[in-house]
Every structure is written in C-alpha cells, then in structure tokens.
C-alpha cells in the first residue's frame, strides 16, 4: 500500500528511506517510513494525534534524529545535518515570532543570519511584507498583531530566504474557522505562485483535502495511504482511511466468494451485498464494507423491478432514525443491518417525507461499496 509514495529518485526532493523513530526504546512512533516528495509538490501529513506525523516533520526539520533509516534532501543524506544547515523554512503552530523583534526584523532574520547584504535584505523584506499585505505594520511587534496577521508574518519569514522546502506544523490550528479557511486558500495560492515544495502537517481532514496535491494518512506510526485527495476519498485502501476521511458507513460481514474483483459478502445481521474486493483475504474472511453517504439512494419499496436502477444491485431494508437538516443538504440517519448510525445524503427537499420509525429500502452500486479490512 506504500506504492503511491514511491516516485522516481530523479524527481524526488525529499526521500524517507526505511525511517524509524522511537523515543523510549520500546515503542516505535514511526515504523518503517518510506516516502518520496516531489519538487513543487504540496504534501500533507494527515493523522490523529500520536500517529507520528509531527515526529516525521520534526525529523525532516532536524529537531529529531531518526533511530534508523535515512532522509535525503535533494539527494543528500541529512540525518546528521543540524537544522540550521538544511535550508528548510518552517512555520510553527504558535507562529514562534520573536517577541523582542519588530515584524520587519522578524522577516529579515533568516536573511541577516545568512549575511545577506543590507540593501538586498531591505528589498526582499519589503517584497515579502507586500506579498502578505502587512507593509504598514512593519514596525509593530508580534504582540500587537492579530492571530491571522502573525500567521502571515510567520509565513513570510519562512519563505523570504527562498528555502528549497517549507514545512508547516498545524499552522492554522489557533485560528477561528472563517480565518482558517481564508488562510488555507492564501497558502494554496502562495504555493502555486512561488512553486515551492510544502510539507504540511494537520489533523484536520478538510484542510488536507482543500490544500494538498497528495495526502499521506498516518496512523500508528505507519503511512496508511498516500494519494491525491479525491483518490483517498473515493478509493480508500483500508478501513482506517475510509473512516478518517469524510463520512463513512460501515457494514460488517463475511466474504462468501471473490470473482473478477468483486465479492459477495454475507452481512452479520443477515442479507448479502456485492462489493469491490479491495482489502480482503479470501472467502471466509471477515470484512468491513465502506459506503459513502452520497452514494446511497432511498428507493420506493416496490422499485425492485424498476428498470432505471438496475445497476443499484445492492438493496437493504432500513428504518429511519432521524433526519438532520444541514442547509445545503440533509442527512437521513438510518438503522441498517444492525448499524444504527448509517448516514444517507438526501436530495434537496427529500427529508420532509421521512419520519422516525419509517421502513425504507436503500440501494447502492457494488462499485460504490468497498470491502476492506475488518475493524
């Protein structure tokens, strides 16, 4: 399942090769990581807390040393290179703007420590501040700026010295929702304009889907899947990814047979469905089926002979528990095959016709149902 992470050595800017990390000598926080990041790519490390994503970022930045394995940056091994020599810009969760320096001095810092000529420093700092639209606040101190402004300064500071790689450690975590969404677009635009390579860490899947070229989903020290956002959502390779990214409906059962990539699964609570065999061991093995809410329709009870929906091969009886109105769409919460939290996305206006306890039939295509590893 790591195949998606491997790209040709020639175009990879960052390569993790067999990297392991343990803090206490007993538990591996990062287990055997192989990951390639291409030049100009926006890669997000996504995962719950404790999944090893921040440790991976810190190893790349040079603040943690891999216990085993090697990291290559532009084909040079950097395992034993101190952070200040790596030429990597970093944006921290709490911005880490130097409180005793002005905004201007903060942005100039990476240039002055490199001994850049004064005139050039001024020029580049002015450009950087213009880029983040904070020229008029150049002489303020960080404490006098709002969170969003501080975040933009931190961004400018990490970009002003044209590093070959920019790391961002949950940079938007401290901002409110509206500002966060605005900053996501702003960072995305900067990435596209400047062609920089970004490694971004977050636990917010919406943020990851919005911004990334590719997302590496971490859990338990292992990259579960690395892929484009749509592929992650549409074709999760295991139950963790299916559940972590977006809403997911789970039905558990046992594989009866596998044929041409599809399998028939007998549900634990009775009945059977046909699903894509993605991550199943073979006949007789337990499996968890994954169906997205928007891939399911509620059909009239007598529609079993309906000609238009013949590809909706899977049909299951369901009981309406509740409907949730969310403005742009509505969800029906159903009880299906023993799962009382089965979500179905409803077409506009459809929620009005459903009442608690009502018996309905749901239908979905075998192509939209993925048989994954049991949870």
């Amino acid at each position, binding site marked *: 399942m790591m195949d998606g992470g491997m790209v040709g050595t020639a175009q990879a800017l960052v390569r993790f090769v067999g990297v392991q990390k343990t803090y206490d000598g007993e538990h591996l926080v990062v287990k055997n990581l192989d990951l390639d990041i291409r030049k100009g790519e926006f890669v997000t490390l996504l995962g719950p807390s404790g999944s090893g994503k921040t440790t991976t970022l810190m190893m790349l930045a040079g603040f943690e040393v891999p216990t085993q394995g090697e990291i290559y940056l532009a084909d040079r091994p950097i395992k034993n290179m*101190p952070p*200040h020599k790596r030429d990597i810009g970093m944006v921290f969760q709490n911005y880490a703007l130097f409180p005793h320096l002005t905004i201007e001095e903060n942005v100039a810092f990476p240039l002055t420590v490199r001994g850049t000529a004064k005139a050039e420093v001024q020029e580049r700092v002015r450009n950087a501040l213009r880029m983040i639209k904070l020229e008029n606040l150049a002489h303020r101190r960080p404490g006098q700026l709002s969170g969003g402004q501080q975040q933009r300064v931190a961004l400018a500071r990490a970009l002003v*010295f044209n590093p070959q790689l920019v790391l961002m450690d949950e940079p938007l975590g401290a901002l409110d929702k509206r500002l966060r969404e605005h900053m996501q677009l702003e960072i995305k635009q900067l990435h596209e304009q400047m062609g920089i390579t970004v490694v971004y860490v977050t636990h917010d899947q919406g943020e990851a889907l919005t911004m990334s070229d590719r997302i590496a989903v971490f859990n338990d020290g292992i990259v579960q899947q690395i892929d484009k956002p749509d592929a992650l959502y549409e074709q999760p390779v295991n139950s963790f990814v299916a559940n972590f990214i977006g809403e997911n409906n789970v039905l558990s059962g046992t594989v009866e047979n596998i044929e041409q990539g599809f399998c028939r699964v007998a549900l634990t609570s009775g009945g059977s469905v046909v699903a894509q065999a993605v991550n199943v061991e073979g006949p007789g093995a337990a499996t968890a089926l994954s169906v997205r809410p928007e891939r399911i329709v509620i059909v009239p009870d007598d529609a079993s002979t309906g000609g238009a929906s013949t590809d909706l091969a899977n049909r299951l009886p369901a009981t309406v528990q509740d409907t949730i109105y969310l403005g742009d769409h509505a969800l029906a919460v159903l009880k299906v095959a023993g799962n009382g939290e089965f979500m179905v996305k409803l077409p506009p206006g459809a929620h009005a016709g459903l009442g608690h306890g009502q018996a309905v039939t749901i239908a979905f295509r075998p192509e939209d149902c993925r048989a994954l590893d049991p949870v």
Partner: protein
Amino acid sequence: MTAAFVAGADAPTEVPLKRRLKRAERARQFKALALVLPLLLFLLFTFLGPIAGMLWHSVEDWEVPKTLPHTVAALSDWNGKDLPDEKAFAALAGDLQAARAAGTVAIASKRLNYTINGFRTILASTARNLKTAPEPGTAKDTLIAINPAWGDRATWAAIKSASGPLTSFYLLGAVDLTRNVDGAIVAAPAEQAIYRDVFARTFTISFGVTALCLILGFPVAYLLANLPAGRSNLLMIFVLLPFWTSLLVRTCAWIVLLQSEGVVNDSLRWLGVIDEPLRLIYNRFGVYVAMTHVLLPFMILPLYSTMKAISPAYMRAAASLGASPVTAFRRIYLPQTLPGVGAGSLLVFILAIGYYITPALVGGAADQMISYFIAFYTTETVNWGLASALGAVLLLATLLLAVVYGKLVHGQQVTGGMKN
C-alpha cells in the same frame, strides 16, 4: 408610552455619570482600603516612621540651641569676619554657667566636638573656670584669659554653624565635605575623608557580587528552566535550600569552611597542593564568596521565571531559519532573558549595598561596607546625625536604582515583549 420611558431615563442624567460611577465605586474602595489598613498602619509605624525620623536626624541640629540659647541669639547678627562683640561673650558666659548648673555642658560639647576636634576640652575648662559671672564689659577678656581659643574666629564660627535648627553638616560629612570658617563648602581634611572610599567600596563589592551571581546563576537558571520536570525540581530544591536557611548560619558555615584551619585549607594541605594555609577569609575574597552564595537565589529565581516563559519554539524557529546555535542564543534567547537579568541584577545589587552582617563576619577592616559604619555611629559613638546622613545617601542610591528597575519592568509591559 415610549416617550414617558425616555423621559424617565433622562431624568437621572442631571447627576454627571462620572460622579455616579464614583459613588457606586466608593463602597468597594472602602472595603479594599479596610483590607490593607492593618498592613498600612504596621508599615507606617515600623518602616515609614523610622525612615522619616532618620531623614530628620540627618539634618536637625538641636544640641547647641538648647544648651546655649542666649549665645545662639547673640551670634545671629554676627558678620563672621571679626571676633563677635562683648554681648556674645557675656551671653556665652551666662549660658555656660546655667548649663553647668543643669549638667548639660556635655550635650553641646559633644556636638561642637564633631566640628572642631578638642572643642569638648575648651568648653569643659571654660565652664569649670568660670566661677562667677564676669563683670559687665569684661566677659571677652575673662573668657580669652581662661582659654585663648575664644580669641579665635573659628571657635565662634563652629558655634554659629551649629546653632540650628537645620544643618547640612552631617550630609556634607557623609560625602567627605565640610564648611570652612567662612561657611563655604570644601573638601574635608584627609584624615576624616573616608566615606567616599567606603561608598566606592560598597558599590564595588555590590557590583562584583552582582556580576558573580549573574555569571554563576545564568547557567543554573537555564538548566532549571530546560531540564525535565523531575530533575528540575530536584535542582530547584538545591537552589532554595540555602534560601530557607538563616543568613547567619550560612555566613558562619563559610567561616568554618574558609578559615586557616578550615575544611578547604586542611583538604588542600592534605592533598599537598599548599604548605601554608591560604588566606581565604577576613579579606575581600571571603566577602565575595559568602555574599555571592547568600544572594545567588535572588538572581536565579527572576532569571528562572523569565526563562521558563521563553518557549523552546523560538530556538527551533531560529535554527530552522538558518541561525547556528550560538547565533540563535545571542540574537533570540539572550535578548528575551534581559528583563530577568535586569530584575535579578537590580535585586541583588540593591540587597548587596545594604549588607552588614556578612562583611562584618567574614571581611577584614578594609572590607567593611557602608552599613557597618551606620551601625558603628548608631550604636558605638551615638552620632545619630552622621549615621542618619550615611543612611540617607544609601537610601537615595537605592531609590534611584528602584526607579531604574521600575522603568525597565514598565517598559517591557508597554512593548508587550513578555507576551507570546
């Protein structure tokens, strides 16, 4: 309905808003005052009162006006250029007889002796030999016959300068100045001019102790702020343990350690490093060692609290932006510790310039600080005027430093430098 409501709401605005606020706040202010009142009274009687008294002692001059009231009155219109006229001599003779009868000659002679060494003898002999009041018109000759010093303009100038009610004599004395016969301010004679040296010594020792505390305390505070909690707590106990021990005990412990037959010298001799015991105590070295040890926690604690507030993310950010560890420390870490360095240094310095017991116990004669002389004049010679004047100069220096400290701390808050 609406109109009536609005009119009703408008009516109370006749009383200005500000006054209404004040009225509403008054009860709370009284309550707050009542809470601090006991401490306020305590401080008034035990701290502010004595300080005011001490400042008053340093400028008041009551002995001569009280003992020789007529002389003082007669000298009030003396031009100070020639000897005073017969009237003054007669007044002095009268005053001296009265003082002798009342047994108060010693009071005036003690005060006048500060100005002219030997005045005590002049006054005592004159009072003793003045059997009867001199005939009118012969007072001058009689007094000069008893003691020729009365024919000297300086003797009379001394009485006039001490005739109160206020004097600058002690304050000038505290900075090695005095007035000459003509009342001009001049340098004190060399054998009396010791206080500038003592102040210089006090500030030198205090500065040295502050520097030592900073050099020794900075790394310890850094460790305290950056070690894992368990080890940092243990280290903190080692820092605080001496802090909780009596000052006297700690000073005496240094005597045990550093004296000629002490632990340090014995160990060095046993190891064969030295043959003769080193002189480690009753000199400047001992003062520095003991005072630095006593004052170290006052440096470490403010430094620690400042460093604890500096997020490790700053050093990481500096490194990621290309700063080597040394550059990051110099440009990012050190500037952020400056409020702590300032607070700790001023605290240690202010405490050090008032130190008395430690230098008195472990220092030599040439290592005594200003407090020793204040204590000496207060308890030994009972020259409260000079003791108070020395204290006033010390107080002034301390206040100046406190103002500097306040400015420093306040300045930090304005810039918001401590935030984030």
